[in-house]
């Protein structure tokens, strides 16, 4: 009697970002071939080195097989039934925001990302990507004063070709895995960040990805380079409309830090997750990897994964420089029929390298949530240390949680510590909170945010509160 009525009402709570923007789009025909790869490159007017990079990746991809080791299941993906390039119809990227199609500006405003001069977020520069292209980047000039480059990757290819040629594919080689190869062949847009030597980026940088078309894949590519002593905090957000078909999202993110540099990369992922029955939603196959090339450099991944029908994602750190540090803080929430197989890889190469993994998985409804992580200590990783903590929270009795920690050590003088726990939100706990005047939903969200606190503490402040609210929203109606 108590909560049954509310639970029923709230389950049907619609996905807030499920609208479609009605805008004329330029799309190429469905399907993938060498000609399509050439066409994409030609549309973007790319230099030869990049076309070669794409073609090599495409040929590698043809030789590869879709991985099947993750704890996920889905009908086969028909790669010939996807559109690999879609862009809102407007001429080249606009010099000023005033020339951007108002419908696009409106879309981002609706998503909570105002781009116009008057309304844009203070102290966060935003690159807004709509389907396959970047439509606007704010605060570019201000950042340029500090020597910071923040622009779409397409623009960077033209204006900073030598940096792209040097770094693109240097962390995630095009044949790294099936989805990385696919991305390398057909990637459309994404962000490029370059922080020169000794510069602490004066504001947070952020990219917001929006999928709009129903039959388009999104293959964005992000590259962030921090030179010696440089530092930056970067945030990525994403949403998509509700379609009853599944769309493929296969991104690649590469991070590079030189000596004493640091990159903090945070993601709040809220792609459309499909409905309660598991119809529709994004297939999210993402390769994210950072390389601490320099001594004492630092890469930190924080992710809050709440969306997508399927999440396949293992943000990793290759700790090459001596005393370099890698961190991974993750909250992955699955509800209804969502499936997540996510975790991290910490590859310790250099001496005294350190890494921390804190993973919090929350599974509700009929969902499945797996942590999969690798900690590897190479032969030279003398005195290296890792600490991993993987906690799962189950809500209801239909959800599943798994933990797959893999450990490989070739260095006896390295220490690896792993802790894991599983808990369940019980009806008695909820009743206890309710019997003190705390509403049902608030009670759930108190318990969940308590569970996630270690991770939320790592998010930039303004996003921590967002993440809290997002989780509460996602869980509405899942406990009963």
């Amino acid at each position, binding site marked *: 009697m108590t909560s049954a009525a509310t639970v029923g009402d709230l389950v049907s709570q619609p996905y807030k970002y499920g609208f479609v923007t009605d805008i004329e789009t330029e799309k190429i025909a469905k399907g993938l071939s060498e000609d399509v790869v050439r066409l994409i490159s030609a549309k973007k007017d790319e230099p030869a080195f990049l076309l070669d990079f794409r073609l090599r990746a495409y040929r590698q991809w043809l030789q590869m097989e879709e991985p099947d080791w993750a704890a996920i299941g889905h009908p086969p993906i028909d790669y010939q039934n996807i559109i690999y390039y879609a862009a809102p119809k407007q001429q080249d990227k606009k010099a000023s925001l005033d020339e951007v199609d108002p419908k696009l500006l409106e879309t981002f405003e609706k998503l909570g990302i105002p781009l116009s001069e008057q309304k844009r977020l203070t102290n966060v520069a935003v690159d807004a990507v709509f389907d396959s292209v970047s439509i606007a980047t704010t605060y570019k000039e201000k950042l340029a004063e500090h020597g910071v480059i923040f622009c779409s990757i397409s623009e960077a290819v033209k204006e900073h070709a030598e940096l792209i040629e040097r770094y693109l594919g240097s962390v995630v080689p095009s044949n790294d895995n099936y989805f990385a190869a696919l991305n390398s062949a057909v990637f459309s847009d994404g962000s490029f960040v370059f922080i020169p030597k000794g510069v602490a980026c004066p504001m947070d940088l952020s990219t917001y990805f929006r999928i709009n078309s129903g039959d388009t894949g999104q293959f964005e590519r992000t590259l962030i380079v921090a030179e010696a002593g440089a530092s930056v905090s970067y945030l990525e957000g994403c949403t998509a409309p509700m379609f009853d078909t599944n769309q493929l999202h296969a991104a690649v993110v590469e991070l590079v830090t030189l000596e004493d540099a640091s990159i903090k990369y945070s993601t709040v992922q809220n792609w459309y997750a499909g409905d309660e029955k598991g119809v529709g939603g994004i297939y999210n196959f993402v390769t994210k990897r950072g390389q601490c090339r320099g001594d004492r450099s630092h890469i930190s991944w924080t992710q809050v994964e709440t969306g997508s029908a399927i999440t396949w994602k293992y943000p990793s750190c290759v700790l090459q420089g001596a005393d370099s540090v890698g961190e991974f803080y993750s909250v992955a929430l699955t509800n209804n029929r969502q499936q997540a197989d996510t975790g991290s890889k910490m590859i310790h190469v250099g001496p005294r390298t350190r890494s921390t993994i804190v993973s919090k998985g929350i599974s509700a409804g009929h969902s499945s949530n797996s942590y999969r992580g690798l900690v590897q200590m190479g032969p030279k990783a003398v005195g290296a240390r890792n600490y991993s903590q993987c906690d799962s929270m189950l809500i209801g009795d239909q959800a599943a949680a798994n933990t797959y920690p893999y450990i490989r050590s070739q260095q006896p003088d390295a220490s690896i510590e792993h802790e894991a726990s599983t808990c369940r939100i019980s009806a008695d706990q909820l*009743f206890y909170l309710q019997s003190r005047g705390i509403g049902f939903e608030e009670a759930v969200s108190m318990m969940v945010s*308590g569970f996630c606190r270690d991770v939320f503490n790592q998010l930039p402040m303004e996003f921590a509160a967002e993440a809290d609210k997002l989780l509460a929203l996602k869980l509405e109606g899942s406990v009963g």
Partner: protein
Amino acid sequence: MIRSDAPVLLEIRDLRASVEDQPILKGVSLTIRAGEIHAVMGRNGSGKSTLSKVLAGHPAYRVTGGSVLYRGEDLLALQPEQRARIGLFLGFQYPIEIPGVSNLEFLRVATNARRQEQGSEELDTFAFEDLVRERLQVVQMDPAFLDRSVNEGFSGGEKKRNEILQMALLEPLVAILDETDSGLDIDALRIVAGGVNQLASADNATLLITHYQRLLDVITPDYVHVMAAGRILRTGGKELALELEESGYDWVDAEIERLESTSAQRITAEVG
């Protein structure tokens, strides 16, 4: 303190409730007026905690008959949180641990939910800290407990004190304390009972569920009820508790047998 003209706070009439289709409460009636202290005693498993949880709205119990009016309002129609906000309080026999949720934050949210209902202003973190420090004195509790997760790793006695601290903050009109005395050492019992006495007034009422006379030595009840097999079998003054201490519950069996057989006969009569 009995005053026959005091307003009725809680009016339970022929309340019946089941868990998983198993009847547990088989017709409980009880009237509680402002200013009164009631004690409910009875054997293990007689339905005392069930009565308290049904009143607080626990979802595991299904009400199958009867009614409960709280200050004239249909209590059973309200969500558990709403019952709490309007001044019903249940001190749990087994307080629940909630890992990850800070005790201080929990107390603040709960207090503000009650205050909002009463039309008082919300307390911010600082104002609340002041209030909570003052109320901690009622139960002589160490402020260190505020920084821990709700009840997590608390000893049995510490959990009970935390319950009374919540009561002191929420200032309920009807407080049901389910075996708040069990698990307390002698000093703690005196402190907790002192706290309850301190909070009792002419405007509120207390329903104590207990097995022991030693609590009723410190908190003097106006009424003592004996529960058995889901009913209130007898009601008397404080001397009834002393009598029970002396002679136990053996007399209960015969009485229950008589009741069950008459109701069985009635059912047969109705059906036949």
